[in-house]
């Protein structure tokens, strides 16, 4: 019942933007005056806004259905006592961590002793709807999954569109719809220049050097935005990994359309292509992962499906691999070491009288494959280069698609698919995240385009999230996903406001001193900058980034302590926290502080209209406060309410990969330590930024010249683009050209050659060589012709010769008979 209600709410929220898309597209064609009407925009806003309301309603429904147990539950786990989460506002993260710290021994005992309370905790926290059947009563269902409709059914295999609703889904829904609504509103102002019949695109030139003039495309922009929202929400709602893949591609194509919105600009269409193709490279890995899963599990569903009686009809992926509750390891076949595929009770499933199993390495392949998709989508190393280029799209697109939602989908999927990842995969995730966050941050330091800085910052922050997930900080990674979505979309919108105010000037060196001209933008931007830098406390409330980044760093630290050889996974993020603060404050100071560097720009700068500032004013408090309460706050608790089961406790023993999974207690134990280190890094970064850019104490240009080697390396984005160009693009085109050539020449010439052979064999005179050969049929033609001509030679027209041939013919015939006749 609850499941259906939830499903209906979320489906409305999901499908409304699709309806909006259709209406807007048709409006564009059939409306009398689409170029001047904002109707399309209002339609889009209405759809996504209604979607937000539906998401909220769903959230409430879900909470009510299980008495908000997710929020309570976590605390009872920590201390077996009511921590009073409703009023936990005054408690800070450190405090909460401390509490957990105290509780650690008790928890360990619980883990060892398998006491009832612990088991209960595992059951309720596991993502499996069915788990509660066989565990103690009293726990409530928090996950709802089911089938929407079947795509195809082949014997026992079935592919369908499903839904899978748990707390993560709901939080994501709410976040996406809320941010999207704000951005839609903002875009209405930002894109208003398109409301004309004669839009002049200053960045696109015709061959005679003039600017391109074209009709405005206001409605089309909103149509694409709506389509994107539909795809993104579908991705979140997806109940199976295949469905995720479907919407994965759809958000990709929407991203393609939106990046390439200014179709006249070559750079835009190049960027769009690059984005899509690099994503496809990731999707190639994703596809391999899907193939492995499909072959061995025969299903893509996350959760189990139940029939009308509530009995499990078909198992989902998550319940097919059971982990040993003591060690967190998979159940394996004793002899081969293959991972067993099990039923809900942890018993191996049978097929043809044998246990079904999957080789461990293929589980690694599957995990890496799915993660490859995430690498593409979330612009992780080595596929990170498309995201900065994607800034060619209009700024609201960057805010929505390329910071808050789509690029976060990779992280979302990594989180969603967490139960299936084995240690090796997680370690890879952690290292990829680690590399990415560092590389991107260093490039951001030297970037001068305001949007590019934000883009690199996005990549870097996504790296943090991946790192968090990789070091078993499931909650931390996703926590950062949400907080980042708010503050980064805020910052993008602010940058959009700046760009709008400065008449499409994006270069920071031409800005400066905009604080007075654009106060709202500057202040809201500052909120975002503080949030991303991870600053604590403003009016007694921490910035959201502080909580979430702390959580990640703490996870990393705990992981390092448990696995000392992976110390880089802690130190690099720590260092990067400082860099992050540095480049973000650099951006702010560069743009808003100091004296104007380009007077032309400065004179014409103005604050944006209300329709653009209102979204900023809505998002700023959210960016500041959304993580309210930190790890004992409602957001975190909601998120982790349905955390994968094996993460709930953590284990002390080494797992298959030789890694030790730090438990919650371990994380809490190092929380303060990590927090202080991160804080120190952030403050020092910010301080350097202030010194360099906020004051005139140091000549930045001089420094740049002194460090020109490094600067050049960074400004060229570590030469990744050149590398890929040399490694893949050029060879691909070469091979392609070769194939085309091969097709034209070699293939045909094989046939030509055989024809030629015939010619050679039957070459009775020299005429053949005179012919110039071109084309297969021509050649076969000419060759038959040549053969024919050689036959012609026989037909001399001389009667006596003909008669001779009678004799010769008899002899030949006789020879044939005598040779074939057996005796």
């Amino acid at each position, binding site marked *: 019942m609850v499941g259906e209600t939830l499903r209906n709410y979320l489906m409305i929220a999901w499908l409304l933007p699709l309806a909006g898309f259709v209406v807007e597209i048709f409006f564009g*064609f059939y409306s009398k005056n689409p170029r001047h009407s904002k109707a399309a925009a209002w339609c889009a806003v209405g759809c996504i806004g209604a979607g937000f309301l539906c998401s909220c309603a769903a959230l409430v429904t879900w909470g009510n259905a299980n008495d908000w147990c997710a929020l309570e539950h976590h605390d009872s786990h920590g201390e077996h006592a009511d921590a009073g989460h409703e009023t936990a506002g005054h408690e800070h993260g450190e405090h909460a961590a401390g509490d957990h710290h105290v509780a650690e021994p008790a928890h360990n005992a619980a883990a060892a002793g398998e006491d009832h309370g612990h088991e209960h905790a595992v059951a309720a926290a596991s993502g499996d709807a069915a788990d509660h059947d066989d565990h103690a009563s009293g726990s409530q269902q928090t996950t709802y999954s089911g089938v929407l409709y*079947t*795509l*195809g*059914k*082949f*014997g026992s*295999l079935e*592919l369908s569109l499903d839904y899978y609703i748990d707390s993560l889904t709901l939080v994501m829904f709410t976040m996406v719809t809320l941010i999207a609504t704000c951005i839609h509103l903002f875009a209405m102002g930002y894109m208003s220049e398109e409301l004309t019949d004669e839009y002049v695109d200053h960045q696109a*030139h*015709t*061959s005679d050097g003039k600017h*391109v003039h*074209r009709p405005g495309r206001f409605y089309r922009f909103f149509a694409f935005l709506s389509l994107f929202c539909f795809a993104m929400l579908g991705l979140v709602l997806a109940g199976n990994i*295949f469905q995720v*893949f*479907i*919407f994965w*591609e*759809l958000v990709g*194509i929407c991203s*393609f359309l939106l990046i*390439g919105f200014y*179709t*006249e*600009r*070559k750079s835009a*269409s*190049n960027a*769009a*292509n690059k984005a*899509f*193709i690099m994503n*496809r*490279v990731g999707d*190639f890995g994703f*596809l*391999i992962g*899907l*193939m*492995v899963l*499909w*072959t061995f599990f*025969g299903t893509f569903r996350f959760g189990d499906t139940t029939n009308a009686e509530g009995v499990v009809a078909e198992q989902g992926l998550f319940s097919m691999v059971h982990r040993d509750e003591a060690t967190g390891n998979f159940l394996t076949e004793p002899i081969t070491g293959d991972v067993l595929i099990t039923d809900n009770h942890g018993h191996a499933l049978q097929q043809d009288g044998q246990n079904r199993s999957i080789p461990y390495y293929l589980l690694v392949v599957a995990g890496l494959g799915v993660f490859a998709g995430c690498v593409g989508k979330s612009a992780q190393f080595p596929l990170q280069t498309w995201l900065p280029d994607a800034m060619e799209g209009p700024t609201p697109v960057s805010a929505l698609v390329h910071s808050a939602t789509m690029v976060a989908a990779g992280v979302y999927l990594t989180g969603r698919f967490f139960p299936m990842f084995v240690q090796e995969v997680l370690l890879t995730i952690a290292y990829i995240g680690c590399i990415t966050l560092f590389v991107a941050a260093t490039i951001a330091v030297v970037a001068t385009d305001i949007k590019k800085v934000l883009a690199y910052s996005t990549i870097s922050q996504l790296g943090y999230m991946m790192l968090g997930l990789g070091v078993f900080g499931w909650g931390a990674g996703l926590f950062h996903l949400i907080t980042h979505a708010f503050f980064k979309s805020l910052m993008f919108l602010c940058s959009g406001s700046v760009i709008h105010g400065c008449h499409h000037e994006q270069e920071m060196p031409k800005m400066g001193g905009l604080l007075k001209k654009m106060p709202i933008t500057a202040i809201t931007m500052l909120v975002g900058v503080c949030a991303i830098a991870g600053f604590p406390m403003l009016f007694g409330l921490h910035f959201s980034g502080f909580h979430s980044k702390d959580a990640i760093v703490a996870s990393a630290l705990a992981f390092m302590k448990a696995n000392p050889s992976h110390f880089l996974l802690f130190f690099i993020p720590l260092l990067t926290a400082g860099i992050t603060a540095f480049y973000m404050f650099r951006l702010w100071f560069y743009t808003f502080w100091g004296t104007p560097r380009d007077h032309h720009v400065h004179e014409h700068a103005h604050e944006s209209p209300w329709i653009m500032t209102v979204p900023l004013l809505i998002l700023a408090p959210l960016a500041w406060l959304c993580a309210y309460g930190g790890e004992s706050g409602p957001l975190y608790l909601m998120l982790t309410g349905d955390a994968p089961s094996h993460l709930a406790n953590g284990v002390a023993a080494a797992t298959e990969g030789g890694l030790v999974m730090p438990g919650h207690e371990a994380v809490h134990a190092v929380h303060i330590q990590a927090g202080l280190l991160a804080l120190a890094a952030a403050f020092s970064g910010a301080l350097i930024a202030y010194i360099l850019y906020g004051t005139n104490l140091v000549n930045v240009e001089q420094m740049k010249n002194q460090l020109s080697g490094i600067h050049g390396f960074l400004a060229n984005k570590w030469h990744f683009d050149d590398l890929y160009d040399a490694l893949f693009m050029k060879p*691909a*085109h070469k*091979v*392609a*050209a*070769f*194939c*085309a050539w091969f*097709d034209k020449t070699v*293939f045909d010439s*094989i046939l030509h050659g055989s024809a030629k052979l015939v010619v050679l064999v039957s070459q009775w005179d020299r005429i053949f060589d005179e012919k110039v050969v071109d*084309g*297969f*049929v*021509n050649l*076969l033609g000419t060759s038959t012709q040549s053969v024919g001509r050689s036959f012609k030679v026989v037909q001399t027209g001389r009667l006596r010769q003909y008669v001779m041939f009678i004799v010769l013919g008899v002899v030949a015939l006789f020879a044939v008979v005598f040779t074939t006749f057996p005796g």
Partner: protein
Amino acid sequence: MTPEFLLTAIIFLPAIGALVLSIIDGKAVDAIRFMSLGVTIATFVLTLMLWMQFDYETAGIQFEVSKAWIPNWNIFYRLGVDGISLPLVVLTSLVSMLSCVASWSINKLHKGYFMLFLLLETGMMGVFLSLDFFLFFVFWEVMLLPMYFLIGVWGGPRKEYAALKFFLYTLAGGVLMLIAMLMFYFNSGGTEHSFNLIELAKAASGTSDHITGFLSPSMQITAFVLLFIGFAIKLPAFPVHTWLPDAHVEAPTPISMILAGVLLKLGGYGIIRIAFPLCPYGAAYAAYALVAIGVISIIYGALAALAQTDFKRLVAYSSVSHMGYVLIGLGVWKITEGTTVNSDMWLMGINGAMFQMVAHGISSAGMFFMVGVIYDRVHHRDLNKFGGLMGLMPLYSGLAAGLFFAGLGLPGLCGFIGEIFVVLSTWNYSPLLAIIAASGVILTAGYILWALQRVYLGAEYKGPHKEDITRMNAREASVAIVLLAIAIVLGVFPGIIFDMMHASTSALVESMKLGYQHAADLVKAAADTQAMR
């Protein structure tokens, strides 16, 4: 109208239309056009009627017609549909109808063109509906004749070369098929030789009541190879695909639509209707080759497409690439130690392949049409001399983008389902080939997006005849919209096709497993007797 008569009507209605056309005055161009359109629409309606009367739950042949034709040789006029042929029959009539609308752009010898066009439709329908090998072969070759002229007379600058090449390849394939046909005929039981495809298929699995003897396992392999080459030429598969780019490029737009939309499907259909059920042992034997050829076709076609500068040639090579999936899907029959492993995966592959055929029929026909629309205006196809069409022809560009995305395999559009289902079923067969096949998605995205960029995006149109670029007219738009709408519907609700095929493909898989077992037992028995001696 009885269902049985319906089949005959579907086949011969276009031919009758062609006869009627022959008495219309050649100068009454519009009368000829509308008359042909009427005939194709009527045929389409007839196929829809067939669809409505079709029973999804029946695995076997429905509406079977069986009339003695040349009893001396046991040749029958035998027609019928099942879940495998029905989708293709409907596709054929649909694509024919749409390309008839597209044929308005034909500007010479209208009467001859439309007569041949209708004859071609008769041929295609005949192939899909006939259940007698001889009849099948007759229709198979019948298609060749109008096609030769349609390319050769109404084609582009190198039409004669292209037409001859097409003729040559197909005829060569036909000869091989003919030999295989004789093998089946003479080896089908005792005195009663038979061309009956259904009975022969039963005989192959040892369940026929009428046919006693059958090909020995080793002959099955020979027969399969002969048939396969014949069908692979039509499909077309690497390395016998070289006729296709020429034929496609030189053919007039509607004929390219038919070629891509229907004719290529005949190859796949032939494999699934004849080569597979009639030689299960041969199919199992050659399965790896099938999949490998499919994989090579995918990659090779995509790479070749990437290098093209001719818009139509690019689309033509994309067909080579896309049809590779069909081969893969059909071939993923994994047998270890004599038993089929995970046959549901193979079933999925076959279904995916069938779906891919239909989907490619829609998307590829659409792509060719879109190329034709712009070609009609500017009379060139050089990819580097386009650009900026999005601004000049927005509706056209939007629809074209949709259809090209369908070709690219974008979810929600028809191309995706076939490709992905096939690829998913491949790992079970061979991880290596699966990975290579999957890498095709990157190349596909590469060449399609690059083409889109060069043609539709950009600041301005760079080629000649800029002044002739006018917006799409209603006739052109209707064709494109219908195709795109179908692409979306099939992409979102693939069950429409899968439900239709389900019973038949399942039965096919079962009978082939049985057939393989049957032949394998024979081989084993032979080996045993050898050992005994």
